[in-house]
């Protein structure tokens, strides 16, 4: 079992400083859609210039490097205790090198730990044992601005006229985008989970954000919902930074979970335009860090 600390440090550096290609392509397309001289176009010009500078200088795209959320899928034989220690060491080192901002705050005392290490939930680490010999680590850095505009609905919802069906999901999701306005750093990406309990539902809505922006949901009904919501969210006209404009969301990713007969949750996780996510693949001696849009 090799020590992955240095590889994890590189995964964090790349994730914080190098925006994935699929997200950058979507931002370039959004820029073309805005009128010349508009505040929306100006915002996207600044965003794209910042993306290039951050990559060039190996400097954080956004100062809010968020909650580091790791998902580790490992073959049998790996020690999750050792992996957790390596992840925590890499996070502390990445903070010392200013790839990450110290973000772990004790909720009772208000004290910032200074090294991004908090209790067992900070950083967030999920482990899952898989078949085969390849270990993968997905990392997503999710900032507080976009996390704060996430929303969970319990259907039916009388105010929205939302019943327990896909039409109800559509209504809840559009309401969430309207409520968010530009505050989650639009244009963002929506991760939507339908069903589950409150906890599993929010978790699944974040996992949905790991999908490449340009993939198509294998479930035909969800694929149709995603396409419709993408178009309709953009009809709201909130635009980049909430300045008004053509692009309010860059993508919509939905999934469904089994639920209790009594519960029907719709959870919407909003990811800002700085959608920082990367995957590390460890295959024997070979370690690769992939843009999540690569197959």
């Amino acid at each position, binding site marked *: 079992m090799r020590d992955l600390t240095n590889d994890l440090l590189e995964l964090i550096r790349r994730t914080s400083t190098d925006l994935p290609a699929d997200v950058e392509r979507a931002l370039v397309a959004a820029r073309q859609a805005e009128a010349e001289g508009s*505040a929306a176009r*100006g*915002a996207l010009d*600044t*965003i794209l*210039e*910042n993306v290039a*500078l*951050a990559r060039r*200088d190996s*400097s*954080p*795209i*956004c*100062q*809010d*490097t968020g909650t580091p959320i790791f998902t580790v899928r490992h073959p049998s034989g790996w020690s999750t205790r050792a992996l957790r220690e390596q992840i925590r060491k890499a996070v502390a080192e990445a903070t010392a090198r*200013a790839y*990450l*901002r*110290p*973000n772990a*705050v004790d909720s009772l005392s*208000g*004290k*910032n730990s*200074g090294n991004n290490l908090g209790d067992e939930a900070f950083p967030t680490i999920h482990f899952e044992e898989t078949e085969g010999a390849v270990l993968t680590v997905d990392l997503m850095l999710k900032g*507080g*601005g976009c996390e*704060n505009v996430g929303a969970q609905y319990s259907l039916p919802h009388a105010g*929205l*006229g939302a019943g327990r069906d896909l039409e109800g999901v559509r*209504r809840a999701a*559009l*309401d969430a985008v*309207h409520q968010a*306005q*530009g*505050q989650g*750093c639009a244009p963002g990406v929506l991760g939507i989970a339908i069903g589950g309990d409150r906890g599993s539902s929010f978790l699944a809505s974040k996992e949905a954000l790991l999908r490449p922006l340009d993939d198509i949901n294998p479930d035909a009904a969800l694929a149709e919902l995603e396409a419709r919501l993408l178009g*309709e969210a953009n*009809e*709201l*006209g*909130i*635009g980049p*930074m*909430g*300045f*008004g404009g053509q692009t309010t969301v860059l993508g919509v990713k939905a999934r469904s979970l089994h639920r209790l007969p009594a519960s029907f949750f719709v959870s919407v996780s909003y990811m*800002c*335009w*700085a959608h920082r996510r990367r995957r590390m693949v460890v295959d024997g001696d070979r370690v690769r860090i992939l843009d999540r849009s690569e197959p």
Partner: protein
Amino acid sequence: MIDLTLPLSETSVRDLHVGDPVALHGVMVTGRDAAHKWLVETFVKRTRAAQGDDAQAIDGLRPLLAGGAIYHCGPVVAGLDTRAYRFVAAGPTTSTREEPYQAEVLQHFGVRAVIGKGGMGARTLAACQAAPAVYLHAIGGAATLIAKTVTCVLGVYKLDFGVPEAMWVIEVDAFPAVVTMDAHGQSLHAQVEARSRTALDRLLAS
């Protein structure tokens, strides 16, 4: 592009209108959640007694806030161990969390510009009109680009709040922002909210 030098005069603030792109030059102070709560509770409402280095900190901050700009920002800072501070990444944070405090901070300290993202509410807009003051919207997430306009970190107050929450005194050159709330009662955020509400109602009617 309108070049603005800090501190701002009343006239220069009144000359600004929603939609104006600006470039800021001079000294500003960062302050976000902990700072706004601290300022209002300790020095405006005085529901909390000043303690530790509070008195010393506010003596340093008052002249900077008078006519100055407060920037809703929690930066990534290098050089923490040597105190040779350098801003590495410094985009704006969401301003609406300061809505319960901002009007008091504007009035009490004479702040003329609030810089952040996402806009603020009716109380702050009314305070901007009364002061006069403006809300300047920086580009959220453009942290490396904005950090490059920070030419010097002059000092820091309340570092015990933690690096993101401390009040950093910085000198900027051509810091880019857009006026989205002006001293004439106009708010781009209120306009976009109303338009998107109409669009949402139409989508939900079908």
